[in-house]
């Protein structure tokens, strides 16, 4: 089983590298094929690491655009995956940082009491995503409330019973920790 997986892993690596070299030479068809495969791989990677968040599609698109802009830096004498996943990790962390509660206005304006009763959603958020799930509890709560559930800093701080600045520190550290975990994580 492991041998088959390794063979598939190596085959993907070689095919993507060949397709990228062809794309560097300007072959549209190969490039289309490569981006199509990568969009699925990236989506799967992100969903399994940070959970099925609403901004994953945007993150995949950002990654595809970055791959396009950086394609001239891919060197076929090096492995393709480290090049690709450096971009994916960067875009994922970027998305987590920038994600400013893309929930609709009505949801944003819901009262704190409603949030209190919405613990199921919070728990679902916590349960989603292998990497987020393996964060220390303080960090996990902070990042789940602000980046996944979509509470404002003030709301999340009140919910956790800490100051806003303490919450911001926790979110910042959680993102740094996630970045480290993604760097250490192999595909």
């Amino acid at each position, binding site marked *: 089983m492991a041998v088959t997986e390794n063979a598939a892993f190596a085959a993907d690596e070689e095919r993507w590298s060949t397709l990228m070299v062809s794309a*560097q030479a300007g072959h*549209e068809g190969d490039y289309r094929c490569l981006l*199509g495969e990568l*969009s699925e791989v990236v989506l799967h990677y992100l969903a399994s690491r940070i959970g099925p968040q609403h901004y994953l599609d945007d993150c*995949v698109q950002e990654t595809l655009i970055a791959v396009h802009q950086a394609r*001239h830096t891919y060197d076929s004498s090096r492995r393709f995956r480290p090049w*690709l996943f450096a*971009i994916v990790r960067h875009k994922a962390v970027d998305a987590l940082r920038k994600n400013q509660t893309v929930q609709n206005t009505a949801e944003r304006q819901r009262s704190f009491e409603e949030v209190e009763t919405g613990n199921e959603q919070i728990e679902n958020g916590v349960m989603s995503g292998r990497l987020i799930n393996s964060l220390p509890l303080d960090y996990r709560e902070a990042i789940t409330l602000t980046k996944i559930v979509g509470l404002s800093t003030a709301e999340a701080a009140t919910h956790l019973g800490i100051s806003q600045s303490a919450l911001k520190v926790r979110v910042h550290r959680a993102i740094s920790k996630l970045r480290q975990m993604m760097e250490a994580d192999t595909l």
Partner: protein
Amino acid sequence: MSKHNALIDSLATDLQPSGRSWNINLLASTWLLFSAAYVVIVAHVLGPIRPEAITQLQNEPRFLLESLLGIAAITLTALSAFRAAVPGALSRPLIAVTAGLIVLWILNYVAGIYSPTLAPSMAGKREHCSLETFFYATPPMIAAFLFARRLYPLQPAKTALLAGLAAGMLPALYMQIACMYEPVHILKFHILPGLTVGFAALAVTFGWLKLRTSGKHQAQ
């Protein structure tokens, strides 16, 4: 997936050849070679070199070793700077070894305060060695920035800091040959301005990123 397909279509349509990628090690070596040649030539043209420096390099093994240590630190810093501008090319071990060599190189001069490599002397003193260090480093730093911009630095601040340090350390090292040898003077007027170039590069990059971000916000 249709959203992705539309994007893929727009990216792939009329795809132009991007050309083969540069060999990043070769690029870093070329930059280093030209920058080192520039620093040596400018230092020789703009002031006299300490007369006995070359003899000391031949006769004082510790002076030769500390110079080689500096060269190694600069080489790895340059390599790290260029690798930082290519996704996935900069490894943690490389950055750790680079940082270790830089610290070791500086500590060598700190140790020199108590046990100098050469007998401290004012011979060969250049009046404005700190300014010279700073300004000699500027063109190589700009060149490194221009190369890095053509690549794809995911963390521009890290790339800028490394490029600035590599550019700043070049004249900082050469001043041990061109200027007087005295450890405190070296640390204050050669090494410190050299390191300052790295932090100046970082500040410039932060400013540029801020401008770019505010420009994007205005455009939206």
